[in-house]
């Protein structure tokens, strides 16, 4: 069998990224859109750690740790916004969140 190189990890990361993009663009439920964004962030993390392995340096892993921290902060704030909006209008359907439309 062909040995597993960095390229294989990049292909997996790209596939997860595309799946996350499809989830963000096509789902109606806001919570699932946020989960697709987490999927995108994880794909980027895999990319970074694979390159960190390729070059033998730890900078990619440090960057990945910071991305996990950032994903936590963004998930907390995004879900806070969702809860605050849900209190106003009892829907989590992104097609019905159109209070700013003309």
């Amino acid at each position, binding site marked *: 069998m062909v040995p597993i190189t960095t390229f294989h990890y990049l292909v997996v990361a790209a596939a997860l990224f595309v799946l996350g993009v499809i989830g963000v663009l096509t789902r109606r439920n806001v919570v699932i859109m946020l989960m697709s964004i987490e999927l995108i962030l994880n794909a980027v993390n895999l990319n970074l750690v694979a390159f960190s392995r390729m070059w033998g340096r*730890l900078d990619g892993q440090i960057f990945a740790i910071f991305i996990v921290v950032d994903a936590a902060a963004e998930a907390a704030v995004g879900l806070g916004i969702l809860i605050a909006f849900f209190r106003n209008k009892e829907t989590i359907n992104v097609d019905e969140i159109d209070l700013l439309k003309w």
Partner: protein
Amino acid sequence: MSAGVSPALLAAFTTTTDPGMAPVATPFFFYLLSGLAILGGFLVITRRNPVHCALSLIVTLIAMAHLYLMLYAPFVAAVQIIVYAGGIMVLFLFVIMLVSVERASKDRRFNRIWPVGLAAACALMALFVSAFVKGRALFPDPIIAIPEGSNTQQVASMLYGEAGRMGQYTFAFEIASLLLLVAILGAVIMTKKKI
């Protein structure tokens, strides 16, 4: 790699000369874990029930933590499981329980304009495929051996510094803690009923 790690510390934890620690069955585990991660990702975007999506995302996160272990990054794998799968996904599940009314599960799953989104994602995938096909020869052979026993020590020395010096990413570390403080404040204030 950081030049600040003391050689004695490094030698105490180096395991690359031990034949018992050589990786085995790497293609099998790689294909199993990446197939699991991609299947979990596919289930996240297609399930109707948001709790099922959250559980599939947990499966994906744990599969990716195993992939980080295969890439000789045990600290990132541990951070992923503890923070991501153990903190962020629990937060998601709490919010799903607070927010998901019964009506949402019976709604249509996808947007009105889902073909447009799918076409955009296919264009993105075509871009990735062309980049991979053209640039496949660009990635040099990997596997410069990182002694994995000292991974946490080296990450710590890069984040916190050692022996009186600042690490390479200490400033970014402090900014990250400020970011978390601001996120906590924002989340608490936004969910109050009366500010």
